[in-house]
């Protein structure tokens, strides 16, 4: 299942990335690999370093440690600048420009500009071309900002909380546009969010950052398949000792029941019910337990990273 992915050219690779602000480390020793053509969700609590990570990739910030490579190039290079589009969280646009002028900005500053793609995105939202940006609603502004990002025809689209200020209907609609565009052009998307429900039917790749480091990274199907949700009767305080042979991510008790998310190291046997977790359960478990051992699947590992043994070969087969 994963042979093809190893062969794929990485769209983004982070090597030991670290960023220190005056108040401390926002990102530390962050390494992962994102293959091309994936829609990747970048998940983490507030202040986990998502924006920092995207800003470094977009060459808005210089990392304190480590490096990022985009299609094998450094973020500041002309080549990676052309192939990457970045939509910052606040979706900055020139407020006094009209929508048409905003698209002209994209046309004037990008050699590979696709006017039709950009216009189609704007038109799909019925945004008037002669309206000033300052008169648009939040959803319309997001749409124009997305049009500007897509019109660049990027190979990698970096989106920082693209839907955060939109109502559910517009959110759904714009997400649909985004997926259609990405699918049509084979664009790799790295999108940060903390709305987990947003990811369920959208992403086929996940990177979870928490406490400054990568907790989970890899193909969604692969990540789901190596985790098991175990439910059973509570014995004593913690999770049952018999689960000890597996890697425990999180366990919680409610009433007389316990629920544990484990990475099985062999068959899970015992008087319990086992189930495969939903993406939301998986993400919540990792976000709630920052001390859980990180899991970075082989497709998401950069060179020299697999040595920590966090991903047993037996588990891949499962």
């Amino acid at each position, binding site marked *: 299942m994963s042979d093809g992915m190893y062969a794929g050219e990485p769209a983004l690779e982070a090597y030991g990335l670290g960023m220190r602000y005056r108040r401390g480390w926002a990102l530390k020793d962050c390494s992962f690999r994102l293959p091309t053509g994936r829609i990747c969700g970048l998940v983490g609590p507030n202040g986990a370093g998502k924006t920092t990570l995207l800003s470094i990739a*977009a060459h808005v910030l210089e990392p304190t440690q480590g490096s990022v490579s985009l299609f094998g190039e450094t973020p500041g290079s*002309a080549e990676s600048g052309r192939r990457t589009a970045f939509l910052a969280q606040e979706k900055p646009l020139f407020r006094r420009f009209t929508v*048409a002028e905003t698209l*002209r900005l994209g046309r*004037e*500053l990008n*050699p590979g*500009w696709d006017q039709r793609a950009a216009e189609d995105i704007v038109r799909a939202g019925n945004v008037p*071309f002669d309206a000033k940006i300052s008169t648009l609603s939040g959803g319309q502004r997001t749409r124009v900002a997305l049009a500007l990002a897509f019109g660049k025809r990027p190979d990698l689209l970096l989106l920082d909380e693209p839907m955060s200020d939109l109502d559910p209907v517009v959110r759904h609609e714009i997400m649909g546009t985004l997926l259609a565009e990405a699918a049509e*052009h084979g664009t790799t998307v790295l999108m940060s969010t903390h709305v987990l429900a947003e990811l369920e039917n959208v992403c086929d790749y996940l990177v979870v950052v928490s406490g400054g480091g990568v907790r989970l990274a890899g193909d969604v199907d692969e990540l789901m398949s190596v985790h098991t949700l175990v439910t059973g009767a509570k014995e004593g305080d913690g999770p049952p000792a018999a689960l000890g042979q597996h890697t425990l991510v999180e366990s919680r008790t409610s009433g007389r029941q316990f629920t544990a998310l484990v990475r099985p190291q062999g068959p899970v046997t015992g008087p319990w019910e086992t189930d495969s977790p939903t993406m939301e359960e998986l993400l919540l478990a990792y976000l709630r337990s920052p001390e859980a051992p990180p899991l970075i699947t082989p497709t998401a590992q950069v060179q020299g990273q697999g040595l920590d043994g966090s991903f047993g070969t037996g588990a891949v087969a499962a």
Partner: protein
Amino acid sequence: MSTFTGSSNPAGAGPGTTTDGKNGTRNGTMNATTTTTTTNTSTSADTESVGTWRPRLSGMTWLVWRQHRAAFWTILAATALSVAWMVYQRGQMTDFLDSHGYPAKNIDDIGEQFRPYIDSFRSATLGLSVIPILLGVFLGAPLLAGDLENGTAKLVAAQSMSRTRWLVTKLGLAGLVVVVSTTALSAVFGWWWSPVKSEATVLEWFSGPAFDNTGPVPVGLTLLSVFGGVAIGVVLRRTLMAMVVTFGFTVAVQILWGQFRLSFGDVITVNTHKGVGETSFPSIPDGAYQPDQWYLTGSGDLVGWGICAEPTEAARNACLEKADVVGWSVEYIPTSQMNSMQWFGASVLFALTAAVVAFLVVWGRKRLV
């Protein structure tokens, strides 16, 4: 379409043409937008420029001009108005002087009737003197601070062109507008002043209003004030605060310049040995600036010319005798040096401006957003 080339707009023609056909049934706004894509040169036919003439701009130049066009046009229009007003005033003044027989007749003899002309001169110099402060605060300080504050710097940095190019285009266009405006004002003001340049009652050449508003000096002062404001803006990253600090900076530049203005001249010293009687003062060129004058003693020492302020002539002579005063030592800078002093001073201002620009470019490479 995933291959990218370095040419100016390779993808423009392809999608543009197809959209154009599809767009025929849509509204005019979109149609106009697409038209520009198809024929990349017909920029002036673009939606936003219908009805107004503007130079054909493209790429980064278009963006910077579009973003700051209100400020740029205001500066250029105000310059044009001021130039027209000064040309008119000069005509009025020369008509008046001609009708009163100047320069054959002394300007002091024309008297009070010339007063209004001097007044309009003075008000013009006042207006010209605040230009560096005004442009520094309202053009320089917000030039980049606004983009950093609104996040639009990130927007521009996310496009394919390098941020150094953005920075250089911004500084270049703002600098060009400043240079065009101040050069025009300086030249026309100098032309207005030229018929009465030798009249100290109108303006003394070495005074701030004359020295700072003619030749290259206003250009240098304004460039330093504006680019200094830009640098303050990028450091503070807040428009309003940058404007306030830039106001302080530009006022400080004016004060410091006032202190050093005349130190760019070559001071000429004349010594006399004919005593210090009533007719003994050395003749120096008309209108020369005299920084200082002393009594010269027999031993070559200089003493203050006030040392023998005695009530009677006899006592004064005795005092002079006692001090061995043999003549005058007078320092002056002749009017003929004005031009070279202005260029020397302006070159210092230009060098400082270049240092500020170098700082901005180095800083821009490191962190521009």
